[in-house]
C-alpha cells in the first residue's frame, strides 16, 4: 500500500516550524508560475482592449461563479505594498466580499481598506464605486459570462468568429427588437459596450448606471472569468461606449429617489423592504461612499 498522507505532513510542518497554516501557501495563494501565466494573459488583454484572452484558469478554494476569475487576477497583480478593497454589490460587508477579503488577508497578509481612495487594488462584483477611480489604481471585475454574444449564440466557436469579423449585426437587431416591442432596451445590467471602437464587451453584471464610469477611466480595468477561462481588459483612458441608437440614446437610469441615509441624489440605490406592508426605503449600494457623506 502506498502511503501519501499529505494531511499529516501539513500538520507536522505546522507543529515543527510553528508557522501559521496559511504560510504553507505562496504569497496570495497562487504559485509564481501560475501568476506568470495569468500576467501574460493580462498584458495581452491590455494590448487588445475588450478582446477575451483564454487562460488556464485554476481551481480555487472557492466555487466557480463566486469570483474565481477575479481572485486569480487579483492574486496575480497583488504585491506586498498594495492596499486591497473588496466589494460585492457595492458594499464591503456583504458575505462574499467578507469571504474574499479574508482569503487575501490569510494568504498574503495584505493591508485592506474600505475607503476607495486609499485602495491600490479593488476587486468588485456588480458595481463600480461612486468615488471616481484614480491613476495607478487597478480595478478587477468578477465576470460570470464574459461573452456578450452568448445570449444570441451559445457556441463559443461561433462567437469567436463573430468577434474576429466584427459581425455584430445580431446584437444591434436584438437591441432594436427590444425597442420595437417595449420602447426600451431590455437590459438593465451587463449592458453591452464597445471598447476602443472595436470589440463588443460584457462589462460584467454591473447596473447600466455604472457603464459611463468605464469610459476614459484613469484606472486599469481588468476582467476575470474563472469558469469560462477568459481575461479581458480596458487600459487607462480608453473609449468605452454603451451600445445605443441615435434616436434611442443610452439611458443609465436608477431609482428616482435620494438615499435615505446620506441624502445623495446621484448614486445607485438598493431598494429595501422595511415592513410587512411592503414599504420601501432606498439606500446607497456603495457603503463606503454613503458612510463618508453621512459623516461629513
Amino acid at each position: 500500500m502506498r502511503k501519501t498522507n499529505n494531511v499529516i505532513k501539513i500538520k507536522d510542518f505546522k507543529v515543527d516550524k510553528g508557522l501559521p497554516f496559511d504560510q504553507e501557501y505562496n504569497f496570495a495563494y497562487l504559485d509564481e508560475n501560475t501568476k506568470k501565466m495569468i500576467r501574460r494573459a493580462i498584458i495581452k488583454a491590455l494590448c487588445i482592449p475588450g478582446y477575451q484572452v483564454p487562460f488556464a484558469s485554476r481551481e480555487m478554494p472557492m466555487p466557480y461563479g463566486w469570483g474565481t476569475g477575479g481572485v486569480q487576477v487579483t492574486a496575480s497583480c497583488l504585491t506586498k505594498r498594495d492596499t486591497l478593497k473588496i466589494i460585492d454589490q457595492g458594499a464591503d460587508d456583504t458575505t462574499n466580499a467578507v469571504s474574499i477579503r479574508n482569503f487575501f488577508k490569510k494568504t498574503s497578509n495584505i493591508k485592506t481598506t474600505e475607503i476607495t481612495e486609499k485602495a491600490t487594488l479593488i476587486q468588485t462584483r456588480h458595481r463600480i464605486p461612486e468615488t471616481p477611480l484614480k491613476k495607478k489604481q487597478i480595478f478587477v471585475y468578477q465576470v460570470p459570462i464574459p461573452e456578450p454574444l452568448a445570449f444570441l449564440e451559445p457556441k463559443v466557436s461561433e462567437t469567436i468568429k463573430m468577434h474576429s469579423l466584427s459581425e455584430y449585426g445580431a446584437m444591434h437587431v436584438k437591441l432594436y427588437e427590444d425597442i420595437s416591442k417595449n420602447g426600451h432596451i431590455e437590459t438593465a445590467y451587463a449592458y453591452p459596450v464597445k471598447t476602443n471602437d472595436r470589440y463588443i464587451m460584457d462589462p460584467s453584471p454591473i447596473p447600466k448606471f455604472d457603464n459611463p464610469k468605464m469610459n476614459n477611466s484613469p484606472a486599469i480595468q481588468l476582467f476575470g472569468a474563472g469558469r469560462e477561462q477568459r481575461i479581458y481588459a480596458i487600459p487607462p483612458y480608453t473609449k468605452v461606449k454603451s451600445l445605443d441608437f441615435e434616436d434611442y440614446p443610452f439611458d443609465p437610469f436608477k431609482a428616482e429617489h435620494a438615499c435615505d441615509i446620506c441624502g445623495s441624489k446621484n448614486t445607485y440605490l438598493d431598494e429595501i423592504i422595511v415592513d410587512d406592508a411592503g414599504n420601501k426605503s432606498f439606500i446607497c449600494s456603495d457603503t463606503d461612499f454613503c458612510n463618508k457623506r453621512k459623516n461629513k
Partner: protein
Amino acid sequence: MYVAVKGGEKAIENAHNWLSEIRRGDVNVPNLEIDQIKEQLTLSVERVMSEGSLYDTDLAALAIKQSRGDLIEAIFLIRAYRTTLPRFGTSPPIKTEDMVCMRRISATYKDIPGKQKLGPTFDYTHRLLDFSLLAEGNIPKAEKRKVLKEKIPHVLRFLNKEGLIQKEKNNNYQPKDITRNPLEFPANRSERLQSLSRADEGFLLALAYSTQRGYARNHAFVGELRIGYVKVKYNIPELDIEIDIAEIIVTECESVNQFQGSKKTPAQFTRGYGLTFGQLERKAVSMALVDRALRWKEIGEEFVGAPAQDEEFVLSHCDNIQATGFLEHLKLPHYVDFQSELELVRRIRKEYEKNK
C-alpha cells in the same frame, strides 16, 4: 430608520461553527474514521478520486468526511487541493493490457482468451435490503483464488486482426493537460477524453442513455469491461531509469458500435473508449458511449443535432465543479442587478398603462 444588514463576518463564522457541529452529529455515536470510509465506502472514495482527478484514497476519504458525504463537495475539496500540488513530470501512459484484473467481462463473445471474470459486482444481486447488515451479520467468505498475474489480451484485438473494427491510428500527438491549458473548440480526442474522464457521472450517464434512446442512436456492445490494478511508471530524468511509482485501480471500457460504412469505407465496427480511476463501471461505460457519439465527424456520420454529438455542449457542461459553482452562485446577493430590473419593469409597465 432602517440600518442595512451588517456583521457578515460574525454571521459567516457562526454558520461555519454550526456546520462543524452538525457534521459531527450526535457525539454519543462514535466518530467516523477515515479508514472506515476508505475501506467500507470504497465506491464513494473512487468516485471522488475520479472526478477530483487525484488518486489518493486517504485524501478522498477525508474529503467525504468533511463534506458530510456530499460527493460533489468532496470532489471540489480534492480539486482545490490538487491545483496546489507541484508537477514533477508526466508518467508514460499506463498499460491496461498489463492489468491485474479483478473483473473482466465481454458482452460480445461467450468465451475469450483470458475468460470472463465476474469479480466483485452488484450485477445479478437481488436488490433486497439486507437487514443482517443492521446487526453486522456474518460475511460469507469469498472463495480464495490466487490473483492471476498473466496478461489478459484486450478483446477488441481479435476484431482488429480481422480488420472488422476501425483501426486507431497513433498520431504521436503529445496530449495537452486540460488542467493547465484552456479548453478550446474544436477540441481533439485526447482533450475530450480527459474531460470526460473527470466529468460528472450523472451527466455522462444521462447523455449515454439519450444515445440509447435514439438521440444519435448508435447501438453499443460492451466489447470489454476490465477492472483491476495497473502500475504507474515514471522516468527519472536525472538517472534515466523508469520506476514504478504507484499501483492504481482503474476501470476501462471499450464499446463496439456498428457503422454502416460510407463511400470511402466499407461497413465495419467502431469503438468508444472509457477510462476512470477506481471501480466505476457505470461511468466507464457511459464515457465510452459518449466518446463514440462525439466521434461522428471523424467517422463520417451525420450530425443529427443530438446533445451527445455536440462537443461544445458536452464538454462545456460536463464538469460538476464548474456547474455547481455557477448554479450555487445564484445564492449570492444580486440586490444591485435585481434593483435595476425592478426599475426597468416599472418603467415599461408605466408606459404600458399610459398607452392603454
